[in-house]
């Protein structure tokens, strides 16, 4: 069997033996969804790329902690959510620091850009509670089943369902308030 055809579990075993090619195949297999999640989180292709990169680096370094009681994809997507969140926090902090050093008119708009909140959807997602955002992104974009999210996050199945349901409704509400029911797409 060619390495590209091996299941994730086998590739993980090879990674553990220091096989870089196995990790590259895992990246290829999951990078599109990781990027999609990161893009939804950050609202920017550039930031999404950075978050994707950081997520894979973090995943490799933490492979030893992956217990395999959930699919690798589930674990990977959660790392992507966290990497995106961390990146946004860093951007916001940097932007805030910058703000204190300038009083230029109109600067706030550029701060929003650097904070990765360029889209209505990005802003709406940022307003969700972190655990709600994580659940809805994992399920609705990552395709992760409810029970795996419950297992991964250590909360009850009903709580996961409730978070996802509330997050969707809140997103719709926030987007309606923004005057747009569809996400605006970044033009770079």
């Amino acid at each position, binding site marked *: 069997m060619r390495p590209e055809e091996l299941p994730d579990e086998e590739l993980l075993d090879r990674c553990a033996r220091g096989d870089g090619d196995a990790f590259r*195949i895992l990246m290829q297999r999951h990078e599109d969804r990781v990027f999609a999640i990161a893009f939804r989180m950050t609202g920017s292709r550039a930031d999404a*790329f950075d978050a994707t*990169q950081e997520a894979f680096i973090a995943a490799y370094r933490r492979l030893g902690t992956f217990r395999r009681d959930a699919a690798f994809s589930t674990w990977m997507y959660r790392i992507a959510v966290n990497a995106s969140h961390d990146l946004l926090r860093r951007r916001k902090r940097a932007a805030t620091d910058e703000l204190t050093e300038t009083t230029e008119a109109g600067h706030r708009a550029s701060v929003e850009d650097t904070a990765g909140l360029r889209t209505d959807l990005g802003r709406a997602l940022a307003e969700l509670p972190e655990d709600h955002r994580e659940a809805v992104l994992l399920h609705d974009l990552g395709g992760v089943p409810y029970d795996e999210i419950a297992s991964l996050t250590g909360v009850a199945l009903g709580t996961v369902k409730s978070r*996802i349901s509330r997050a*969707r409704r809140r*997103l*719709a509400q926030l*987007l309606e308030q923004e005057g747009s*029911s569809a*996400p605006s797409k970044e033009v770079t």
Partner: protein
Amino acid sequence: MSRTEHERCSEALTGYLDASLEDDEAVWVTDHLDTCPECRAEMAGLQALRGSEESLTEVDRARLHRDVLHELGLMTGAPAARPSPWGVRAAQLLGAAATVALLLGGLVYLGGNLGGGDDADMGGAGDGADALQDAESDAGRTTAEESDAAGGAAPQSEALSKDVPPPEATYQAHLGTVGDRALKQTGRRSRPFTAFPTNVEVGAVAEYRKPFLDDLVAQAPDEVTDQLRECATEVLAQVPTAVATYAAPADYGDPPRAVLIIGFAYSFTEQGFLDQYQMWIYPRGSCDFPTNYIGGRIRP
């Protein structure tokens, strides 16, 4: 409306959007959504999340693999084995032998025809009238003089069979505003790629890549030379089968944005001929995240 019904609908919404539900269940969800504003709101949120697709470009992928594997110390020198022209089998190709005769003649630069002149010339190759019309609307100009000046009046087969002129990597100073269709037509039917001979062997590429890029850069105005060299070099580093054959600054998209377009001829395979092209569109001043690229087979 019972809580159980809301939960049932909520759990079914992703399947409903993906059209993966059983018919009975899909009908039930439809009926429920008709009568339940709460679940309709939930559906709206889900649709917003999934609303617009964003995906990695092949450049992104190559860069992602390179950067991550490098950071982790996992670089082996082996290229990514994606079913993609960029990055595939790159390492094996580096040592290929060179035969170059037609490649030199094949570096024909598009002279002011991104907007439509060449498309008009190549009209005999199919939907020429439409192509001309599209190109006119995209570029706002096309004339017989431009077509003749570009030397593209000959049918494609003739252009490919006759002796091609020596390379002239000229740089178009400004092309005005161009649109997707004109760009595609340029790639498919204009001189940079239709006149590129299709019997150039992959092994001939290595020693000609730098001189060709130097030619392009030498002709470019100062404000884009650094970007042209940097962006093209980055792609060439990823794709040892590629040769930079085309470059042009332009205003692209709606609203128009200043971009730098770079075209490459390359091959999917480690043996054989350069028979593919790609055109990359970079935001002016940056090699990060080309916003779009098109490509295909160099005719015929």
